[in-house]
């Protein structure tokens, strides 16, 4: 089974966003606001995706836009203990690299 490396995943960060267990189209507007605010702060950001039990393309796409923005603004972004469900969905959509999550087969 595919595992992602833990290099980019941080559990220690003051600016942490909790994604909860559901990150689908019904939740994206809410999380989107939080992500925008944290980007505006200019601080490094940690996103807790450890509890995600369901994520769809809308959620993954939003995280991708966020990560790309952060990267372009030199804001460090780390993923906290990504859940299997999260990793699998991200890999399914080929967004690993675009989220800074390299995979080892």
């Amino acid at each position, binding site marked *: 089974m595919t595992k992602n490396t833990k290099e980019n995943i941080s559990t220690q960060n003051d600016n942490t966003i909790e994604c909860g267990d559901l990150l*689908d*189209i019904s939740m*994206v*507007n809410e*999380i*989107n606001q939080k*992500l*925008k605010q944290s*980007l505006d702060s200019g601080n490094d950001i940690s996103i807790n995706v450890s509890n995600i039990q369901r*994520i*769809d*393309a*809308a959620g*993954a*796409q*939003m995280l*991708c*836009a*966020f990560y*790309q*923005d952060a990267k372009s603004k030199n804001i460090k972004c780390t993923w906290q203990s990504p859940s299997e469900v999260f990793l699998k*969905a991200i890999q*399914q*959509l*080929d*967004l690993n690299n*675009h989220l800074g999550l390299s995979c080892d087969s």
Partner: protein
Amino acid sequence: MAIDITQFHETFFEESFEGLDIMESGLLNLDIGAADNDTINSIFRAAHSIKGGSATFGFTDVAEFTHGMETLLDEMRDGTRDVTQKSVDTLLQSVDCLRELLAAARDKTPVDSERVAVVHKSLEKILSSEGGSNISTENDEHNENSQTESISERSGWKINFKPHHDMLKTGNDPVRMFRELSELGELTVIVDISQLPTLADLDPEESYLSWDLTLKTDVEIDLVKEVFEWVIDECDLEISEIVSSTDDTAMSSETQDRENEQGTENISSEPSSQAKRQVAKPGVTEKSTASTDSSASIRVSIDKVDALINMVGELVITQSMIGQLDCDFDDFDNSRMEKLRDGLTLLERNTRELQESVMRIRMLPISFAFNRFPRMVHDLCQKLDKKIELRTTGENTELDKTVMEKIGDPLVHLVRNSIDHGIEMPQARKETNKPETGVIELNAFHKGGNIIIEIKDDGAGFNKDRIKNKAIERGLISSDEHLSDDKIYDLIFQPGFSTAEQLSDISGRGVGMDVVRRNIRELGGNIDVTSEEGKGTTFTIRLPLTLAILDGQLVCVGDEIFITPLVSIVESLQIKKEFVNNIAGQTELYKVRDDYIPIVRMHEMFGINVEKKSLEGGLLVVVEGDGKKAGLLVDELLGQQQVVIKSLETNYQRVDGVSGATILGDGTVALILDVDGLIDLSRNTSAPNNSPDNSVLAVA
């Protein structure tokens, strides 16, 4: 109420084929390296219409194929991709494929799916390469060719999936769809995030991503399509076969793709000999240029329809005017007779004008026939490494639809000949102080009651000595025979005659010019050739404007009436015995001024009993066909009238010397003479040991 959409199929196909012509001519006009947005837009619009229509009517393979073209054109249009020769060539090949797909859908015939897959793959390869970097290299071409050669088995499906912005809002989730796909086989996913905006501009409920999926599997396409069943109207979807090689030396298409994308060069730069034979130059096929296939319908401008309605209106008025005359013949005075005469004159005029209006409906601009040539010249120039500019004039000259459809192939043959044998290689032209780029001109214009089409090139021209020697070699003429230039050039129309030193797949097999002339003659026209060595050659085709109606002279032979086409008649005269000469007791010649013309005894030719058989005092109708004259011996000259031509072949059988038949005002059938054929026939039958077989020609 359900609508039967098949009733719209014919219109869809007509419009689609017109769209393909627009695409083809637009692509040929594109400047490589420059983005001509107007042209690209018009090509894009045509592709878009075809895609939309085909999806609506359920021709999914057409819609899917067009989608790839549309994507490429879209990238060219928005400037993210350069207009390269390779892209244009691939799009031209795609136009050919699309034409085949549409024809197959229309005719319900199978399509060459392997060829379609190869072209589709070429399109995908360009699309998957970086914009502007897809410049064709020898290596690319060799890879493509070896791929063309070796593929034979499907190993999976390549899917291009681009959700529309609103797709996610409908609850459809690519994560789920890709999971389902991965259950069908080994799935590789490549995402495209190029359209993803910044977070500030992102509407998180909309979709901005698209994916290229490769599914290695042996399942049928239906199972793959099932995964996308719920989103088919909410995404752009393209599914194509991945074909794998049966050739051990060839790479799998996917591996090859990836390596090409990465620019690696681990494929031999020398193509295999087998691959070399199959250099896939863009569509040098008959099918690719067959844009003037005969169709069962015709598009008519509203002006012509209005004119027709006006004529019918006039006719109704005339009818009512005549109807108002009280037909009590006991009391039919002069004033009413006058009115009747006026009415009949008006009726005659209305009928004539109505006939002309109806005939105009069948007339199409000759551009329909000329449109295929830019592509043909483009393709053949690439194949032969020649430089040729095609110039056309008189494209709006109108010609009957049937004539147009039948003249297409002879024109193709003549233009091919000019490209292959007429125009020299650039180096050879340079050495003779000619511009490297040769010129082929296609001119059309009306002259008298005919349309003239000229095919003129500034190439090498005919070598008269070579033609003559070839004719002597083949026993067509004797070595001491003196021939005029016209006669020498006429030899090229002999069956199997070719002076080409090398045969090619384009022309030069010597099985063409005789067929060209025969086809043109069957249309009631003729072809002349003039040439000057080193300067060029001009073929001149003369055609009647229509095949449906003929201006004819009615002549009487015994009890039979024949129609002689007026255009063929030079003069009519009464025979004077002193001008009649006999040659070896076989051929009778009549002296007309300084000319001697053979006399054709019509009653003998058609096996008709006549009372008066002597020539003295008889009537001779001097006719000319294909540059040759003859005198037709007839009993009486009747009137002249327009006749509607009925095909003898369709209604009876082909008869030499007769081009058709017509029904006269009194209901009798009259044969229409084929003057060219009649002259040839009379020459053959007057030769010794070849006496006329009247039974063949006897009027049925």
